[in-house]
């Protein structure tokens, strides 16, 4: 395999096979399902197995296909615009995700910065300490907060003991609990790319600025922050995009007034058993996320090309 970038390399059979195997897997199990979701979002709910109409049987051939196309309708999408539950869920998901991302950045930046400025021999350990919670179950980490945030939970017990409050605070089953859950669960996703960026920062720039009489806060804003931007962007995408569709956190920590689209989709699918409407919900969610996802991919590709 010669290293050629400008021209197409001559590829052996093995070379093609190397590409074909993962490519075929992703085409079939990642890309193709989206077309099925789209198709079913245009179908009608039916009391049948599977619970939607029309279905497509390849054995019916061309006539089956004609019938299929004829049976498709945009009713589910019309329904989504009429019932305000859906668009309220979308708006509230995006705003909860955006606010949480901002808080995660404010919490995560000092941690990443502290790690990058720590003595070299500590850094591997610190990195390990950030990665470790990321390996432990998401569900467990969300569950841990229930015991802390409950009315009779540990946080309220502690605050009552300190005498800071004389009534337990209601935090669980509110949006505040959802913010805490998202920030906590996604913090490592933001800290890791940011740390990778800050660690590479050439400290001689800061030294030069200091020698020329630049106060530390100013060199922070004019040197460190601009150079950390790629890490900030990568980290924010890694938090924001999955948070918009989050289900576990709003379901376990949020209350009845917490509207998030992941939860709405789940209810539509598992409680109402309305597959066509949940597919339509998924299609719209995907359309909302397509721009951030494409931006994220470009960013990742550039980072990979730079060898980060």
């Amino acid at each position, binding site marked *: *395999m010669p290293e050629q*970038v400008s021209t*197409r390399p001559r590829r052996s059979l*093995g070379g093609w096979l190397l590409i074909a195997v*993962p490519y075929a*897997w*992703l*085409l079939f*199990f*990642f890309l193709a*399902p*989206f077309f*099925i*979701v789209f198709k079913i979002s245009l179908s009608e709910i039916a009391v049948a197995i599977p619970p939607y109409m029309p279905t497509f049987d390849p054995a019916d051939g061309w006539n089956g296909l004609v019938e299929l196309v004829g049976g498709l309708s945009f009713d589910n999408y019309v329904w989504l615009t009429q019932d305000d539950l859906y668009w309220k869920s979308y708006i509230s998901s995006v705003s909860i995700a955006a606010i949480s991302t901002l808080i995660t950045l404010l*919490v995560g930046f*000092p*941690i990443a910065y*502290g*790690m990058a*400025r*720590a*003595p070299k021999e500590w850094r*591997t350990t*610190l990195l*390990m*300490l950030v*990665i470790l*919670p990321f*390996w*432990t*179950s*998401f*569900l*467990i*980490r969300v569950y*841990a907060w*229930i*015991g802390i945030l409950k009315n*009779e*939970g540990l946080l309220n017990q502690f605050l009552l003991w300190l005498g800071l409050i004389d009534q337990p605070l209601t935090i669980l089953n509110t949006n505040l609990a959802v913010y805490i859950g998202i920030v*906590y669960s996604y*913090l*490592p996703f933001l800290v890791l790319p940011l740390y990778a960026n800050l660690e590479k920062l050439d400290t001689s720039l800061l*030294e030069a600025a200091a020698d020329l009489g630049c106060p530390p806060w100013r060199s922070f804003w004019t040197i460190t922050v601009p150079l950390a931007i790629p890490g900030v962007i990568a980290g924010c995408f*890694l938090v924001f*995009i*999955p948070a918009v*569709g*989050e*289900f576990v956190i709003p379901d*376990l920590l949020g209350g009845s007034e917490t509207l998030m689209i*992941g939860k709405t*989709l789940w209810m539509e*699918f598992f409680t109402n058993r309305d597959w066509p409407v949940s597919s339509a919900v*998924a299609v719209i*969610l995907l359309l909302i996320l397509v721009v951030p996802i494409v931006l*994220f991919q470009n960013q990742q*590709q550039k980072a*990979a090309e730079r*060898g980060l």
Partner: protein
Amino acid sequence: MRQGPSWFNVTSLVLGFSFLYLPIVLLVIYSFNDSRLVTVWGGFSTRWYGTLLGNQQLLDAAWVTVRVAFASATIATVLGTLAALVLVRSGRFAGRSLFSGMVYAPLVMPEVILGLSLLLLFVAIDQARGFWTIMIAHTTFAMCYVAVVVQSRLAGFDRSLEEAAQDLGCPPARTFLSITLPIILPGVVAGWMLAFTLSLDDLVIASFTTGPEATTLPMKIYSQVRLGVTPEINAICTILVGVVTVVVVFTSLLTKRREVRRAQDMRQAEAQA
């Protein structure tokens, strides 16, 4: 600039790591609580661990979960390593940007979408749902994580060793097994571990793609958590956290030792040359 860590950095690290670890530590502590009321301390006891062992449903779910995780992590590691090789080595080919798009998108794609779309695929091809469908679903998203981990390992790779082997007539497959694979092995191992824990963890995708006879541990934990916080759940969670911590720390120490040894070997080789 080199006057050691400032008080600001130390404070932010201490606060940050307390925030990350305190909830898990409290969860572990309260799994040893004698009282049934999770948040009232009633003395030290290991009785909740005893009741776990008597819970056959839970043990069945744990066994299903481990089998799914093992199978999907293994297949995902093979596919993910191939995908990483394609991304780093294959140069340009038709459909390359679609390919890299499909590798990066699952990393951020909301789980509800992945789960729903795979379920609808399995229904469309009339595949009975259960162990196999969860495994395929987990393989699909885990291989992308493996690809990213292995890719970063491949990016800083000295190609001259491979070229030398091929110049000496070593066939590509053998070059891969005896040169490329040992060098990227830490990335491959880390990728497998990541895939394993992702599968062990997953609630949403498994709930969509499972059938009546396959219930995984997260699904079991989730249905119990919905009914309220109980000390048994704290005990299961403690066991899971313990297993993951031991495995992760152990592998990272192992990789680190290998790296140190490799660096020493390189220095010696250079000194002799």
